[in-house]
């Protein structure tokens, strides 16, 4: 189908505007982080730093390091746990017959957890964690994030497993593999793109989330990076440059991560969008 030149020009203009609109805010964050606070508080603001200073980054690295590590521990721990638990459950749901209604109820619960407002879990979990000494610990936070990540893994992996023909399982079983060996040696390698997709989604969600860490941790023992940034924000309201630098440091790992896993991320985002 031929498209006119007018259409192509118009399309180029719109796409350019959209790209600038998407990228400019990130540039503005970077710009702010490379200025001094005195330069930030200039009216009108300058669109590039008069002279670049890295002092805000030095400040961030010396003050936020421990929270950065906490975030890494929490994100890896929760991703690992939810993928293992979720994959086992998804394999079972995709391969075996269950009593009537069992699958329906299970999928409803899983969907309900996925849809629920996080605050619904957090208020009771806060009270329970306080009584069980899980409050303000890595393990408590990992459990809490596993609750939100695992349903997503089960939901996505069930549909992935269903696409792998049952004949493969049967062939492996006839060759003398047990069920678990079949799952480990035959099915999981075939489903690895799906597992990668769910792991990427879980990792990004955990790294980026504020609310669980905000109410389930209280100090550097387990507090995650976003919570510490929020704490900084409320304490030093005019330290714009340091705040921006902390923001850059918080998003850079995921941006780098994106370069490697973009394929999986786009799939994870759009799955379910297409029947």
């Amino acid at each position, binding site marked *: *189908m031929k498209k006119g030149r007018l259409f192509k020009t118009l*399309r180029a203009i719109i*796409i350019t505007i959209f*790209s600038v609109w998407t*990228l400019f*805010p*990130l540039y*503005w*964050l970077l710009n702010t982080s490379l200025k001094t606070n005195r330069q930030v508080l*200039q*009216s*009108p603001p300058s669109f590039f730093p008069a002279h670049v200073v890295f002092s805000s980054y030095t400040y961030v690295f010396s003050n936020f390091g421990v929270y950065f590590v906490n975030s890494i521990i929490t994100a890896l721990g929760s991703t690992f746990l939810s993928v293992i*638990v979720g994959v*086992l459950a998804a394999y*079972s749901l995709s*391969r*075996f017959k269950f009593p009537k209604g069992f699958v329906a109820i*299970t999928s409803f*619960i899983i969907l309900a*957890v996925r*849809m*629920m*407002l996080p*605050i*619904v*879990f957090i*208020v*009771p*979990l806060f*009270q*329970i964690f306080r009584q069980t000494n899980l409050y303000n610990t890595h393990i408590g936070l990992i*459990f*809490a994030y*596993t*609750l939100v990540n695992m349903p997503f893994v089960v939901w996505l992996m069930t549909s992935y497993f269903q696409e792998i023909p049952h004949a493969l399982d049967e062939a492996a079983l006839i060759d003398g593999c047990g*069920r678990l060996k079949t799952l480990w040696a035959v099915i999981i390698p075939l489903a690895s793109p799906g597992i990668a997709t769910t792991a990427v989604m879980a990792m*990004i969600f955990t790294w*980026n*989330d*504020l*609310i669980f860490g905000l*109410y389930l941790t209280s100090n550097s023992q387990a507090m995650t990076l*976003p919570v510490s*940034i*929020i704490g900084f*924000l*409320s304490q030093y309201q005019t330290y714009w440059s340091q*705040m*921006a630098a902390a*923001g850059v440091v*918080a998003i850079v790992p995921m941006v780098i991560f*994106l370069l490697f896993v*973009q394929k999986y*991320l*786009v799939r994870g*985002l*759009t799955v379910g*969008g*297409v*029947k």
Partner: protein
Amino acid sequence: MKADRWLRYVLLVPAFVVLLALFVYPIIYAFHSSLYTYLYGRPTGFVGFRNWGEVFGDRAFWLSILRTLIYSVIAIPIELVVGLGLALLYVDLSGRLAGILRTIVVIPFIVMPIVTGIIWKLIFLPHFGVADVIESSLGLKPLDWLGTAKGATASVIIMDFWMWIPFVFLIMLAGLQSQPDEPYEAAVVDGANPWQRFVYVTLPLLKPTILVAATLRTIDAIRIFDQVYSMTGGGPGVSTEFVSLHVAQVAFNLADFGHASVQLFIAFGVMLVLVGFFYSLIGRENV
């Protein structure tokens, strides 16, 4: 196989332990809490359903739900239309440019939401922000974005466009790319013009995708928290205190777990009704 009879449940055990310990038990716990009064975070007495009655008459709570709905009703339709429009423009673009654009589009999704809040706060800052520069270069009087109720709500919605239009775009694009060619060829043969092809072929075929996008957006819109928390903190006053922020305020600042627990159940109920509504629409489409 005989072993399978047990194995099917054994494989599900870890998942059920997680759900029981972290979902079912907390919900029961919350229901239990909803029947008690609290002072400084400690239960002070059983009051039956008094908290429930009080929350049903609590204006501040219902206003926070109304605020969330108003924001959703304004933001989501615009996001759907713009996202679809961009996907239509983009769908037969290919090559290097298409790849770069696809990377750009994913970025707002992976930026930490609280950082998104900080970025837009910097942009809307009075005197020192970009919004002021744009307004004065257009000859307008700079608005007080973050200092007024309407301005703050508008800022939240604009930030929402930045975060979520790319997401809608990706879903719509995936939907468009999976459409079969035949109906289009038939429409061309029948002499349909581009607009007719859009209305009578693309839209009907894309309806399930649009409904899914609307559902996912609605779920996330009701849950909005992080980016608002860092951008406005719910203010000025309570003008951007959406439902999650309000419940968090009652639970953690007032340490009133009794009333907060009731609010949790109501918020979830509202969510279920909305999602049920969308799913019934989607279900009808598929039958």
